[in-house]
């Protein structure tokens, strides 16, 4: 066993593997930061180049792209309010506000450090407890997934901003949008109006690009450029060591959340970062809670460490059971098979050296991410020095490019545009966009698994409380929802008292 570990480490340390890893991370950062270009695309692009290359060298490049792209989606979220990937949407909760405060460099540095730490901790989990973790994830059936989705919905309150009611409305709109298309269980068409393009539903990525980027461009057109001018002078504010010291437990907790959610197939990093943000908010005292949504660096530490920790987590079911949790890991599964490796329990016994090589490559990717990311944190805020009059039209061009590139579909471009106008209108109505996106991501998990559970139990609701994991998650969710309602009522009473006091 020990020789396999040493051999694996040595495979990942050969110069070709190191260079492939570095280039992979760099390519991943480019792909992640461009809206619409995804980690999946970057990996798929590289796979043909890995034919005939040593497996560990090939995986050094592929994992580099994966790690780089997941990290970099947040860079444009923070700088120009345009998330590069769906997973980076949570960075919008604090990132743009930090940039407006002139703390773009600080936010990018925290993003880099938190992502690298999150990535490394998830590697550690992958190496040490992969098989055990995979077994826990394997016990998840439809009721557990439904309970988890319901738990995710409780986060809507945490990302709603000032009005819980408007957050709820946003969540319901998002949920409804996700219902458009073919029904996942019976294949019945819903709200498709005989349009074939709508059969597969509305893709989250073009919707996300439109919702956040186009609405932002339209808002900027209203002439709110004073903030932009003000922040140019201050983009040099960097991160202090105390910021990191203050957040060590937050990063640790968020990484654990990210790793665990990564392990559960089909949940994804978008959900993980929202959960981590919400947990941080819940753990904060009343005074700190007021800082959220106004540019709080702690929020960035939570979302980014969770987001990147998903990378290690998602590899657990892939390598140990041969189950890909999402599209990226499905592409990686293909890459493993091209190399003649069959993912699953036997992989550890038959090709232990390669597995340990892959683990080492993932660790190296995260180290390169730290190095390249810290460099990028210094250079990228300079984007903000491009005059808004050029930057905003350029962002629109990237939105068109990104939404088209996802599946070479002009329909996706139209979806992006429609969601852009919808996002702007909702912002004018004071309806927050984050809950809408969160509900769009969670709705398919909730609907499919609720209905599967009903089919399994012959419409008996007790299936949700007779299975231990599902019962615990539902009880926790109900407790949280109860607390949210209680707090909301308390807030309302206090407001009423203060109004009466004034009069």
């Amino acid at each position: 066993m020990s020789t396999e570990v040493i051999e694996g480490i040595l495979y990942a340390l050969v110069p070709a593997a190191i260079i492939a890893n570095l280039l992979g991370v760099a390519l991943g950062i480019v792909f992640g930061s461009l809206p619409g270009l995804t980690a999946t695309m970057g990996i798929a692009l590289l796979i043909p180049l890995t034919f005939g290359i040593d497996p560990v060298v090939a995986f050094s490049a592929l994992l580099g792209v994966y790690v780089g792209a997941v990290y970099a989606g947040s860079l444009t979220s923070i700088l120009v309010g345009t998330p590069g990937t769906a997973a980076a949407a949570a960075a919008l909760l604090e990132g743009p506000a930090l940039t407006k405060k002139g703390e773009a460099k600080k936010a990018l540095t925290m993003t880099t450090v938190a992502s690298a730490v999150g990535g490394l901790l998830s590697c550690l989990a992958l190496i040490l407890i992969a098989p055990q973790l995979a077994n826990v994830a394997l016990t998840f059936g439809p009721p557990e997934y439904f309970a988890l989705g319901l738990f995710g919905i409780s986060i809507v309150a945490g990302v709603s901003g000032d009005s819980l009611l408007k957050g709820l409305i946003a969540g319901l709109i998002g949920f409804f949008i996700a219902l458009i298309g073919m029904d996942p269980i019976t294949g019945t068409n819903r709200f498709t109006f005989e349009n074939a393009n709508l059969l597969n539903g509305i893709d989250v990525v073009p919707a996300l690009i439109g919702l956040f980027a186009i609405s932002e461009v339209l808002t900027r057109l209203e002439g709110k450029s004073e903030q932009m001018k003000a922040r140019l002078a201050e983009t040099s504010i960097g991160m202090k060591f105390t910021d990191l010291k203050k957040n060590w437990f937050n990063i640790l907790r968020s990484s654990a959340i990210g790793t665990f959610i990564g392990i559960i197939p089909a949940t994804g990093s978008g959900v993980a970062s929202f959960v981590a943000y919400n947990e941080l908010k819940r753990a904060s005292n009343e005074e700190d809670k007021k800082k959220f949504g106004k540019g709080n660096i702690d929020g960035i530490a939570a979302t980014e460490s969770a987001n990147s920790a998903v990378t290690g987590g998602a590899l657990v079911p892939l390598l140990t059971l041969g189950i890909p949790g999402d599209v990226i890991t499905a592409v990686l599964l293909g890459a493993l098979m091209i190399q003649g490796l069959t993912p699953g329990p036997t992989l550890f016994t038959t090709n232990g050296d390669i597995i340990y090589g892959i683990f080492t490559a993932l660790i190296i990717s995260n180290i390169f991410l730290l190095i390249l990311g810290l460099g990028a944190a210094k250079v990228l805020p300079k984007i903000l020095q491009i005059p808004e009059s050029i930057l905003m039209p350029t962002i629109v061009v990237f939105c068109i490019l990104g939404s088209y590139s996802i599946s070479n579909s002009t329909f996706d471009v139209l979806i992006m545009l429609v969601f852009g106008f919808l996002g702007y209108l909702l912002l004018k109505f004071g309806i927050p966009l984050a809950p809408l996106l969160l509900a769009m991501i969670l709705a398919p998990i909730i609907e499919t698994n609720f209905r599967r559970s009903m089919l399994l139990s012959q419409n008996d609701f007790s299936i949700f409380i007779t299975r231990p994991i599902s019962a615990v998650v539902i009880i926790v969710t109900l407790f949280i929802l109860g607390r949210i309602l209680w707090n909301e009522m308390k807030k309302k009473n206090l407001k009423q008292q203060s109004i009466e006091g004034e009069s």
Partner: protein
Amino acid sequence: MKKEVIDLGAGTLLFSLATIGFFFTSQIDSNQPYGPSFFPKLILTLLMIASIILVVNTIFKWKASKDTFQLDKNILLTIFIFTGVLIGYVLLFFVTGFIISTIVFLLVAQFIFGVRKPVLLIGVSVILPILLYLIFTKAFNIPLPGFFE
């Protein structure tokens, strides 16, 4: 105008849309208790209830509220024009492909955003689309519609 007008408008619009949506759910075939129409009906009902609460809350707040807002006609006009430009860009993108539509869009959009220097206006509008086209198609191998494809 009182700020509450916005919430009142939002609530009424959402209620109307949710009601229309609910009407369409009757067209979804379903003979199971938790079939394809279950979630659409549930979500749209909740949306109707939430919109009613929003409207009722707003009516109760109406008298006490002092916040007002004003519509700036110039801003409104700029937004309308830019919306038209965006729609035009997408339509042109479908017809002429990426490069030509983007050149036209960048020229118009930069002008709306206030760029007046001809060198900057033309330089960015021509160089950026060609550069992006080459990077995407040659380096990333991602096909983009070219000229009149």
